[in-house]
């Protein structure tokens, strides 16, 4: 702070509090809607005071789901967790080894491979959706965890991030390892992996959220309720049927549960989250 300006300080806090309140408002209303009965939700305008039905609504959604999608939330949360973990860990694993190869070896086609990985940055799943679906269907991976996760595992950003980081590891370490007779894999496990832990943690937070929040891809590769993730489960709950048939109190309970894991990850691992966001954009 450069100088004292009490009025400006007041305005500062007022604006920030207003921002926080407006941003939190939709989630607050969602929370309230998840604690009252279906009839109370339909009474326009809905109350803004939480009701007493929190436990029974969450239990109902957790065990039986809601509306047109009969998949219980526990199944969908499990599917989301599996896909988010497989996508996050898979991305980190394959990017780590490919970046290691590209930085620590000289081999024919090295730069060609690097550019091949780079170009994938330019092909988001949204723009090549139909042919990708066709390939996954030809490999008979529809309605499976492999189909949900594998196509999303390749990651140019993670490969870049690790490459950047490896380039900052002092050459002396590799030299010392070679003089001591350590092979490349020994060097990888004993030096590179332990040094990369911070980058891995940062990437994990970002990729876990990315995996948990996937929408378009699970929407088209899953037709059986057993494989729905919670994000598309919510969409199925409100799709089809008339306005009145949507069980909003259960949908909102599901939405609260769907938001919880990634929000907890962001808040508890905030330092790594910020680092991950900033690093992946370099």
């Amino acid at each position, binding site marked *: 702070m450069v100088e004292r300006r009490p009025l400006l300080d007041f305005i500062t806090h007022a604006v*920030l509090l207003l921002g926080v309140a407006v*941003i939190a408002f939709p989630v607050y209303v969602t929370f309230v809607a998840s604690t009252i009965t279906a009839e109370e939700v339909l009474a326009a305008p809905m109350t803004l005071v939480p009701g007493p039905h929190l436990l029974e609504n969450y239990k109902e959604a957790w065990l039986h789901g809601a509306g047109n999608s009969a998949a219980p939330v526990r199944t969908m949360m499990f599917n989301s967790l599996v896909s988010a973990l497989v996508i996050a860990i898979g991305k980190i694993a394959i990017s780590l080894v490919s970046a290691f190869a590209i930085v620590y070896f000289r*081999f024919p086609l090295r730069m060609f491979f690097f550019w*091949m990985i780079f170009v994938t940055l330019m092909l988001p799943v949204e723009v090549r959706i139909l042919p990708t679906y066709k390939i996954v269907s030809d490999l008979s991976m529809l309605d499976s965890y492999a189909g949900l996760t594998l196509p999303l595992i390749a990651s140019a950003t993670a490969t870049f991030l690790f490459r950047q980081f490896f380039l900052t590891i002092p050459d002396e370490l590799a030299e010392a390892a070679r003089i001591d007779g350590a092979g490349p894999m020994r060097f990888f496990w004993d030096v590179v992996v332990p040094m990369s832990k911070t980058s891995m943690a940062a990437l994990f937070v970002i990729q876990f959220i990315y995996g948990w929040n996937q929408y378009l891809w699970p929407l088209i590769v899953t037709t059986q309720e057993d494989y729905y993730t919670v*994000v598309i489960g*919510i969409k199925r709950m409100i799709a089809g049927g008339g306005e009145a048939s949507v069980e909003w109190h259960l949908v909102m309970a599901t939405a609260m549960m769907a*938001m919880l894991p990634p*929000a907890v990850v*962001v808040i508890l691992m905030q330092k790594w989250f910020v680092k991950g966001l900033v690093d992946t954009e370099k």
Partner: protein
Amino acid sequence: MEKRVVFRSRWLPYLLVAPQLAITIVFFFLPAGQAIWQSLLQEDPFGTSTEFIGLENFATLFADEHYLASFRVTAIFSVLVAGFGLAISLVLAVFADRVVRGAGVYKTLLIWPYAVAHAVAAVLWLFLFNPTLGVVAHWIKGLGIGWDPLLDGNDAMVLVVVAAVWNQISYNFLFFLAGLQSIPKSLIEAAAIDGAGPGRRFWTIVFPLLSPTTFFLLVVNIVFAFFNTFAIIDAATGGGPGQATEILVYKVYKDGFKALDLGSSAAQSVVLMAIVIGLTVLQFKWIERKVQY
């Protein structure tokens, strides 16, 4: 930049890049190639007859007023999302940068919407804006303004823009805050000593120094509005009413999966790929000046 010390092995590097390359080839290059090839063909929905027709799909596409309308919708949507998203988060970041005590608390309270899935954000706002039971819709009607995003195209656009901006604010906020904190305090202090007030300091020093961040965020937000908002559109409006919120990525999906017009959908994919490549090049042009590889 290259490593001076490297390891030697004939086969090991290939083995290490193999998983990444296999997935890249199977799920990126094959589909992209197929989209390009398919965009030159005319096929009926059952795949019984296929005919090579050159660039005819593209010609049809650009003569199709629905496609051109979708371009307009995408342009309006991304300008609104990027404009409001950047403006609101810049205001919040500038004020958060002023706070001495409690800055961390504000930061935590402002960044969590990033964790909310786009589709979930869309459902939350859909609920608030629902013409019969939404709380916000009720307030709007209380002001005597007609409101029905299911029937009115402009209302539907407001709904998806609000949901998208809400979802993106935390990202913009974090980058603006980091940008603000990297501006040397001595510059600001010097200006203050010369008698420049906070408003003057912002417009003549802070805002110009922040321009690389602003430009970077502008590109990121446009990419976000173009490609990542599919979930918001699908969950909130389904592109409707009519075509009012049908952005380009939604149209690719709708024409391919619902109308089964494969040739047109593939041609649209190719057009979108060209747009992404253009935007990515733009983004990397910016990064080149800042980061040394």
